[in-house]
């Protein structure tokens, strides 16, 4: 019997509904994707045969295997436990102190992920702090010093002199051997030769070694000597000190050859003090400068009198005669030259200062006498709380050299100085060095001196070291390490402690020194840790309760003896007189291995990568030497001979140089005998050979009255007939009387308050009755700012509009902004040959203009034709005035560069920035051509690699650690330019956003504005009604460079005002 039972799944099936039947046939109710693919009719004809299958399989396997081989392995090791205070991507700033025997500054070091990458002045504490801004003043050498940390040519460990020169050794061996050497030398004279120490704990470490070896003595040697000054103070006041100055109190500054804005004294202090009194107004100081070479100070002076080197002491005598009222014996011409300065000084007794750059004790005694008569001690000059930064004693150095040669010295330990390079009698020093049984250098490099020593026990870089300083009585600063030592180096104080047998670490010694010191100021021992932590945090400790200087010092030197001594330096009979100086970039030569500094153009001559003979254009013309220098126009070589000493260098026309004088910069020619003094100390010449940068001019110095003299009065200059290419960034000298580029006026005109008299807006004639006189004529004009060809970018009054204001009065031309910009924005160093071709990459440059005797008005008066007028305008006057003008991208709101880029690689941001998108740039350079300010820079080569790496430590693996990770490193073939530090703007905006507040004025700084200790560069938001930058931009002195072309920059300049007595301004 067949079963009639029916099995069903659902009611639809039971009732035999058509849908259900259909559904039953189709097991999968929805079409599978594969059916669609397989159902494609076009596949019907296709066949994948066995062979094809194997081909595909083989290819697939092969491709996968190859891809696997090429996978790069990137080692990225994250923190297992994240350090509390390090967040990747967020910078940490540490307070520290820079002191190299030359420059002193309290600094802040920016570190990223543990790497120091940028240095700026400490805006809260320190002698170099300008409290009015507040900002820490530094110079280019200081902010560039971060790069030298990563110089791979620093010694990687101790070195021992063997039969075949220096060989690597170990600390254990060094300690053992040196300790034995010291023991052997016990009883004989043992000398530690250093620069000025100014460090209480270093002195304490020395004391520890001295306890073991009582014959040990400290000789301090300043590479650039101030012995003349300190000796004069010993004679005048019974104290062998260098006074500290307060230029904020000086209404009149008279400097005789003291370049206090660049090299003389504590410049990080004097620059901001000076600049604070350069604000035009009633309180503006008046600055007189007497000098042979146009120095940075001279370039800033209101009255600059070029004098021969031999006339400078006479000028001091004449000033003394004027001030003291005893005119006997003073030179009549000098009496006249110094008359106005003396008059100004007499009118500002107690509110003035006279400084002299001479190292002649007699001259300095006379200066002390002048200041004493003027009553400046106690106000502008402090002798009771002197600067401790210049303690070097040339007489002791001379005695040391004698002792070394006579065999009296048993051991010589050298720290921080390079006498074999910088002493006038370096040969004697070297000869003596060979006779000393134990010679140890603490130099970080196998430099001129270290390479001659028995041992090199390399010191840490200062950014790897703990240290303390007392730059002035009652003012203490701490140097704190911001990175562990990169190499197997050891701080030299640490070495002293080891050899003294002490087991105390130098850090602990500093702490205990401070603890004792603070007790002296009444600090409580139990509070010490707090105070110490605060001091480490601030970098500076200024105990309360230290009485200000009472200045009881009474001048008590023999003026007539001093006059006689000074007179010895006035007997110039030669054809030429030579002055030796140090440049803003290189200083005494300690930093000659720093490529940022080598490539920083000299503020006045605009020459990079060389030293040279500065000569007056009139002398150059007379001698028939090359006047115009450029890419294909090399300088003439001359030999400068002073007695037995001679040097051959290119000669450069320097307007303002006194005729009959020449000047040569010290600090060059490092590593001339192949010593490894740092990667950038040598450069490639125009044919690609390695040559030292410049020549060493220290052999031209001499011993005068027991101190090093930096002049020679009987000098001959002879042309060799050869030429030498120089790398110069600005070949043109004058501003061609272009009023819309540089505007300047004098104080009297400024004080009239009539803006039109000194800052006249450019106007265009219009066809409407503007002046309301009923007729439309040429008198109807409107300021150019009211015209606009284009639609405005919607940046005014909307959101932020970033801008810079640059005060031509505040800018002293030091160039710290240039190197700060280099460091912040990863700007390539391109080397001498590329700079010679005018291809330096600086985003920020410092334009220098000399005044010309010919102006448009004078040409009209003289009836000169236009062609003659322009030709004459190209020539600076014999004693010109100087304008420094920092120029970076002006961030035009109608940017000519933006319209011409075919691929829109440069665009305007809604915050007023002119942005450069490197990735989009194809390198047509049209933007650079169309930039009226010529601020755009092109990557002509792959500057990151090839020959440029050889002069630039930043381009090896170690050097790359200095790069700012927030800024792209640009490749070949793209344009770059100032971004107004957009990375800092972005960071500042984010910080404000996190804090939930608007961006505070002053919270964001660009690299240049934060490096500018004089406050000449101010950054801010022009849409912020209360911002400082808006106040400046709308002030009477504000103008836009090239206003009439209507590009509407976001950068404005403030008219330069000189405190001169002339009735009419040079540029009315």
């Amino acid at each position: 019997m067949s079963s009639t039972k029916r099995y069903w799944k659902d009611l639809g099936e039971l009732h035999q509904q058509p849908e259900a039947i259909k559904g039953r046939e189709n097991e999968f109710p929805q079409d599978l994707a594969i059916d669609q693919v397989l159902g494609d009719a076009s596949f019907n004809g296709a066949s994948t045969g066995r062979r094809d299958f194997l081909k595909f399989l083989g290819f697939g396997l092969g491709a996968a295997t190859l891809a696997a081989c090429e996978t790069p392995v990137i080692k990225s090791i994250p923190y297992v436990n994240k350090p509390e205070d390090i967040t990747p991507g967020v910078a940490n700033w540490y307070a520290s102190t820079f002191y190299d025997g030359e420059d002193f500054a309290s600094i802040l070091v920016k570190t990223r992920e543990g790497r120091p990458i940028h240095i700026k002045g400490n805006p809260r504490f320190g002698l170099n702090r300008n409290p009015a801004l507040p900002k820490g003043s530094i110079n280019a050498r200081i902010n560039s010093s971060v790069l030298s940390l990563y110089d791979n040519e620093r010694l990687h460990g101790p070195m021992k002199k063997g039969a075949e020169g220096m060989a690597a050794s170990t600390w254990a061996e060094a300690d053992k051997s040196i300790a034995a050497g010291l023991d052997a030398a016990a009883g004989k004279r043992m000398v530690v030769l250093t620069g000025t120490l100014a460090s209480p704990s270093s002195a304490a470490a020395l004391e520890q070694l001295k306890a073991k070896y009582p014959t040990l003595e400290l000789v301090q040697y300043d590479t650039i000597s101030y012995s003349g000054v300190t000796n004069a103070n010993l004679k005048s006041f019974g104290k062998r000190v260098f006074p500290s100055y307060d230029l904020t109190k000086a209404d009149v500054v008279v400097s005789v050859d003291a370049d206090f804005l660049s090299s003389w004294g504590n410049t990080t202090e004097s620059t901001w003090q000076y600049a604070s009194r350069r604000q035009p107004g009633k309180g503006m100081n008046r600055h007189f400068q007497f000098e042979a070479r146009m120095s940075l100070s001279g370039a800033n002076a209101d009255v600059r009198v070029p004098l021969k080197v031999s006339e400078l002491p006479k000028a001091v005598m004449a000033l003394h005669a004027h001030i003291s009222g005893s005119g006997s014996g003073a030179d009549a011409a000098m009496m006249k030259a110094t008359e106005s300065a003396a008059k100004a000084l007499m009118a500002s007794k107690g509110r003035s200062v006279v400084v002299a750059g001479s190292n002649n004790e007699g001259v300095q005694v006379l200066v002390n006498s002048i200041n004493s008569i003027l009553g400046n001690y106690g106000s502008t000059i402090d002798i009771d709380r002197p600067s401790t930064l210049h303690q070097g004693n040339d007489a002791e150095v001379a005695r040391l050299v004698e002792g070394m040669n006579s065999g009296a010295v048993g051991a010589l330990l050298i720290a921080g100085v390079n006498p074999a390079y910088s002493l006038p009698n370096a040969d004697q020093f070297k000869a003596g060095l060979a006779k000393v049984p134990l010679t140890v250098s603490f130099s970080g490099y196998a430099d001129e001196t270290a390479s001659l020593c028995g041992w090199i026990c390399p010191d840490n870089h200062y950014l790897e070291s703990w240290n303390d300083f007392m730059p002035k009585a009652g003012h203490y600063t701490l140097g704190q390490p911001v990175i562990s030592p990169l190499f197997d180096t050891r701080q030299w104080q640490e070495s002293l402690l080891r050899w003294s047998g002490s087991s105390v670490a130098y850090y602990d010694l500093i702490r205990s020194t401070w603890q004792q010191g603070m007790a002296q100021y009444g600090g409580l021992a139990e509070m010490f840790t707090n105070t110490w932590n605060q001091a480490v945090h601030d970098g500076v400790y200024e105990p309360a309760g230290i009485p200000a200087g009472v200045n009881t010092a009474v001048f008590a030197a023999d003026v007539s003896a001093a006059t006689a001594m000074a007179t010895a330096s006035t007997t110039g009979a030669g054809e030429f007189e030579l002055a030796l100086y140090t440049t803003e970039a290189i200083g005494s030569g300690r930093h000659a291995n720093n490529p940022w500094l080598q490539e920083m153009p000299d503020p006045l001559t605009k020459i990079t990568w060389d030293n040279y003979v500065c000569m007056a254009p009139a002398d150059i013309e007379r001698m028939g030497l090359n006047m115009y220098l450029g890419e294909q126009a090399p300088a003439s070589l001359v030999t400068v001979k002073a007695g037995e000493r001679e040097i051959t260098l290119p000669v450069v026309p320097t307007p303002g140089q006194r005729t009959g004088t020449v000047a040569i910069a010290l600090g060059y020619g490092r590593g001339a005998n192949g010593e490894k003094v740092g990667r950038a100390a040598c450069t490639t010449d125009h044919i690609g050979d390695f040559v030292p940068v410049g020549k060493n001019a220290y052999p031209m110095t001499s011993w005068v009255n027991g101190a090093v003299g930096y002049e020679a009065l009987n000098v001959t200059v002879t042309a060799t007939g050869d030429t030498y290419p120089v790398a110069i960034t600005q070949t043109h000298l004058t501003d061609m009387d272009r009023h819309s580029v540089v505007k300047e006026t004098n104080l009297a005109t400024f004080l009239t308050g009539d803006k039109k008299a000194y800052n006249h807006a450019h106007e265009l004639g219009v066809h409407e009755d503007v002046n309301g006189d009923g007729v439309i004529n040429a008198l109807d004009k409107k300021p150019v700012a009211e015209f606009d060809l284009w639609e405005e970018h919607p940046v005014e009054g909307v959101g932020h509009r970033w801008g810079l204001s640059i005060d031509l009065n505040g800018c002293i031309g030091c160039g710290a902004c240039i190197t700060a910009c280099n460091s912040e924005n990863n700007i390539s160093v391109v080397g001498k040959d590329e700079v010679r071709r005018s291809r330096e990459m600086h985003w920020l440059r410092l334009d220098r203009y000399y005044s010309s005797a010919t102006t448009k008005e004078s040409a009209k008066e003289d009836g000169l034709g236009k062609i003659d007028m322009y030709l004459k305008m190209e020539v600076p006057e014999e004693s010109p005035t100087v304008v420094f003008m920092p120029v970076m991208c002006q961030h035009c709101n109608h940017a000519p560069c933006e319209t011409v880029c075919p691929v829109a690689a440069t665009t305007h941001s809604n915050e007023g920035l002119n942005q450069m998108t490197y990735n989009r740039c194809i390198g047509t350079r049209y933007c650079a051509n169309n930039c009226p300010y010529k601020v755009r820079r092109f990557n002509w080569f792959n500057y990151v690699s090839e020959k440029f790496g050889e002069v630039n430590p930043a381009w090896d693996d170690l050097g790359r650690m200095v790069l700012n990770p927030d800024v792209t490193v640009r490749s070949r073939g793209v344009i770059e330019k100032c971004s107004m530090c957009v990375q800092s703007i972005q960071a500042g905006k984010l910080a404000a956003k996190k804090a939930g507040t608007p961006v505070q004025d002053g919270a964001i700084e660009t690299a240049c504005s934060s490096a500018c200790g004089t406050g000449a560069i101010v950054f801010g938001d022009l849409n912020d009604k209360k911002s400082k930058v808006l106040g400046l931009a709308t002030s009477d002195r504000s103008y836009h460079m090239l206003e009439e072309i209507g590009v509407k920059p976001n950068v404005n300049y403030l008219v330069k005002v000189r405190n001169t007595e002339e009735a009419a301004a040079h540029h009315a």
Partner: protein
Amino acid sequence: MHSEAAIREPLILGHKTYHDITSDIVSPIENKAPRGWYILFTIAALIAAYGTGCILYLISKGIGVWGLNKTVDWAWDITNFVWWVGIGHAGTLISAVLLLFRQKWRMAINRSAEAMTIFAVIMAATFPGIHMGRIWMAYWVFPLPNQFGSLWVNFNSPLLWDVFAISTYFSVSLVFWYIGLIPDFATIRDRVTKPGMKKMYSLLSFGWTGNAKAWTRFEEVSLVLAGIATPLVFSVHSVVSMDFATSIIPGWHTTIFPPYFVSGAVFSGFAMVQTLLLIMRKVMKLESYITIKHIEYMNIVIIVTGSIVGVAYITELFISWYSGVEYESYAFINRATGPYWWAYWSMMTCNVISPQLFWVRSWRRHLGFTFFMSIIVNIGMWFERFVIIVTSLHRDYLPSSWNMFHPTWVDVGVFLGTIGIFFTLYLLFARFFPVLALNEVKSILKTSGESYKKQAADHSHH
């Protein structure tokens, strides 16, 4: 058939028949090339190879191998670009504008002039390419859809207009030239016997049959293309001039530039046509077709355009004084008296003074003198662009940035190289392509041929 006034000089000399014309033009292609051709070709090819090497070196090392600097960011590169574009203009003017104006004398010269245009434009287009810092990104100048978001080219930039202008110009010129070549290729195809040659010219002639319908279409297409090409004669160099005219650099920012550049272009183009044709008519024995009259006509064009250029120079000077703009006035004084005075006065001598010598009839009909002048004019026009570009840039607004430009061997090598490539291409053209529009020339034989004119004159006397 047209009849032509007897006083007009004949455009085809001697007793030529249609067959003579064909064999005169085609035989150089059929026969072995003369020794001179091989010598010239070897020299040109060597220079071309050297130039190509320089270009490759430039691309591998970076633009820094040129002498440019932070102030002068363009120099020989864009000078050469404008110079080559300018040279191209004569070809288009001859083939298009003179066609529209029914100037029969153009028929003897238009083919080679157009070839010159094509090759000159290729050379010109090389420079904007290789002057880029990142030539491998050169395609970004085209408005291509891309994956960079909504990233587009900048239509405000004259450089972008250049891209459109040059590419349009090149394509239209190429098509125009090629269309004209088709019947002539067919003629060659029908004559040659070597199978390889036959195959090649068959392909090149696009199956031309020569029936009446084809000729009608040919005429129509020529006319239409002439209509399209004519505005290009004026637009291309106007656009090129806007690279400068729309900028703000004193010496560049000048509204006079478009007409000034166009006339300068025609001026230099005709000079280059003279240079090439004077050699070619001698070497290829085309004296019957490229007559003294042709040379004279072209010299007249040179006087006219040269005078326009001269007036433009003087107008610029006048305006620089009259405007009272300090920078503008200085820019021109600097051109004439500054460090590059020699470039300015070379330009003035070559372009303004020398063409005026053609007012003397015997001089403008003198072959040697014409050849010499054609070289002078091209040197002058190169200097004109150099003066505009380099002397304006080297001293612009801020004296702090004033600088000099010094060329390097690569600058020189690349320029020479383009001349080498140009002549290589031209020599290949002369060897394998009909250098005269032979079918067009035939069309004027009976009206402008010397023997026919004589016959006609004899008839009319009877």
